[in-house]
């Protein structure tokens, strides 16, 4: 599968990542993982709470494992069982102008997350994809 971020953008959307931490964590993350998507932090977890995301047992995953997991997603790779899970007790939403929610996935437990394919399929349902468009041009 091709780069998931590129696939999202090819569908006219943007990937926005929100993490739990301080801005300096975002800088480290962005620089070390070469994140090209807009990246924000929600230190007080206000957005997490407003989104109805689950709070439960804290993960034993190291930040490095999580970062690799996110990179795996943005690079469109499937995550193996030992890779860690960036969506743990997180969630993914597709939101369109006008507060229209086209997709909502609230992780219920560790390892529970939507596939990149599910996200891309949801985007496909919003607008036809230009399959014949050249890419990388």
């Amino acid at each position: 599968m091709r780069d998931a971020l590129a696939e999202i953008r090819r569908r006219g959307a943007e990937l926005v990542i929100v993490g739990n931490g301080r801005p300096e964590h975002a800088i480290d993350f962005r620089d070390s993982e070469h994140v090209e998507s807009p990246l924000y932090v929600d230190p007080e977890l206000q957005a997490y709470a407003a989104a109805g995301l689950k709070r439960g047992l804290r993960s034993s995953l190291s930040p490095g494992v999580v970062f690799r997991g996110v990179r795996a997603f943005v690079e469109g790779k499937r995550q193996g069982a030992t890779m860690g899970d960036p969506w743990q007790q997180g969630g993914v939403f597709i939101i369109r102008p006008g507060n229209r929610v086209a997709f909502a996935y609230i992780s219920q437990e560790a390892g529970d997350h939507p596939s990149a394919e599910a996200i891309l399929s949801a985007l496909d349902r919003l607008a036809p994809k230009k399959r014949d468009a050249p890419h990388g041009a």
Partner: protein
Amino acid sequence: MNVAKNLEDISVLDPDGHAIRLGDLWAEQTIVLAFIRHFG
């Protein structure tokens, strides 16, 4: 409940520490908003 309405007036911080209103992110384009549980 509409999660977008719940979120739109909440601000998050960019890596430089500037507050960004979430609703502004999807005001003019479709976004895939991914919350990760751990960030550091």
